[in-house]
């Protein structure tokens, strides 16, 4: 898994771009801290963002997030965790 100076792997970069584009955030994707929380503090995303993001992830990677997944909090905890879950569960 390649990493450049930003410290992000290629799937993390791709996901960071998807997040910024989908949620219209006014930040550079490379500025997302891979281990920082995405929701609440950190990027400050809310449950509507979670819904929008889940849709983008489902359409891009074929991975359908479920809030009944016992790991869901961990999956959404950071860019890195979310990228890992996508790599593990993607179908496209």
């Amino acid at each position, binding site marked *: 898994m390649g990493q450049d100076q930003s410290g992000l792997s290629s799937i993390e970069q791709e996901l960071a771009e998807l997040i910024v584009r989908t949620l219209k955030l006014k930040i550079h994707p490379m500025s997302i801290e891979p281990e920082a929380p995405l929701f609440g503090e950190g990027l400050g995303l809310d449950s509507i963002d979670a819904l*929008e993001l*889940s*849709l983008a992830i489902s359409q891009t990677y074929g991975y359908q997030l*479920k809030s009944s997944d016992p790991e869901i909090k961990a999956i959404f905890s950071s860019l890195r965790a979310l990228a890992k879950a996508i790599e593990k569960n993607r179908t496209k």
Partner: protein
Amino acid sequence: MRATSLIGPYQPDDIIARGQGTPRTVAQFLSDVSSLADLLPDCPTVLNLAASRYEFLVGFAAAIMRRQITLLPYSRAPYALRRIADDFPGSYALTDRDEQREEIESISVQIQQAPSPVSLPAVVPRIPLDQVVAVAFTSGTTGNPVPNRKTWGALTAVARATGSRLGIKERDRVTVAATVPHQHMFGLEASVMLPITYGLSMYAGRPLFPADVRSVLMDVPDRWLLVTTPLHLRACVADGVAVPTGGLVLSATAPLTVELARQAERQFRSEVHEIFGFAEAGSVAERRTIAGDEWKPLDGVRVDQEGTAYVVKAPYLPGPVPVPDHLSLLPNGDFVVHGRKADQVNVAGYRASLGDLSAKLLQIEGVHDGVFVLPDGETGLVTRLMAFVVAPGKSGEEILRDLRAHIDPVFLPRPLVCVPKLPRNETGKLPREAVEDMIRRWREQHDGEV
């Protein structure tokens, strides 16, 4: 004074809630309510923050039996809870297991997971129709939450009228599942009051993602009724959710387009109905979206013109309630809605005034000028607000951090744009065209930028 039963025509073994461990029977529910009612402190008002719809219901019912009023916070943000707690001194909070809030004394709703032996026959309490049981909050003109008191009579009348309009019969084998929070007025009416008034089952969890909606509706052993919003419907349609046929979709909080309604009817293989309402009056009217623009008032409800304004009248309302939208009335009493009045915005079902939001922005130290706007023609599931701010010496991040303490997160601007000045005219006003121009210029500059 007349009174009605706390819950509708159930038998003790009927299932009142699913998705909360093992299915809860009515007998268990009544025992859960009476145990909790014994534990509640002697306070006039309670903030019910329970995330489980069943635990919320147990807390709501226990509070009613103790003649306490349930406050329905429009947001779980700490500032909002503190605000309500300040306005209603002597309140405490009901929370889910293990959740402690800093803002307010909390008690958690403890439901015995193992079905406890229930002493029968359980007596269903009767509640006076004029008892105030809940307060829903709306944002006022000054930005302070305005309380709207709801009587037991109003909540049960709306539930009854909604059910009859949807063709629901008492003790139908229907499970109501909802993506909307039960602390929201529509959520309370359609996903809590509707099932308990008609003797239906409710699903305790709150599905968020399309895959959740699918698995909940697949698990329902009888017919389903999905209480939801255009936002969730759009996500479910986009994701191609497949569900068992024979259900019913009930959407509210924002208008559904005919196109989305048609797609949703196909996707859910069910009729899609909509409710028009607002916190001050509750649910007012219903329509099947693909059948036409006209809203049919619920039985017992009338929309009347008074001068240039429109008001809702119903026997259970204390007086005529002004409608916050522009509408036109048809001779048969039906009406067509033409959109929110200027300044009123709806973001993902949450209503606010742009003026209030801008006022909050201006209160932030270091902000010289600023305005919230709702951009046109946005794409995506939900249109977010933008804000333009003049604050030399402050960064956008700092302003956002300060704003977060004062407004609900759904209204946080996306993006917040720092500008040297706003295009105010000589009278100090911000003409709509100048604002649109500013948005267009900002977009041109940032187009293609990731």
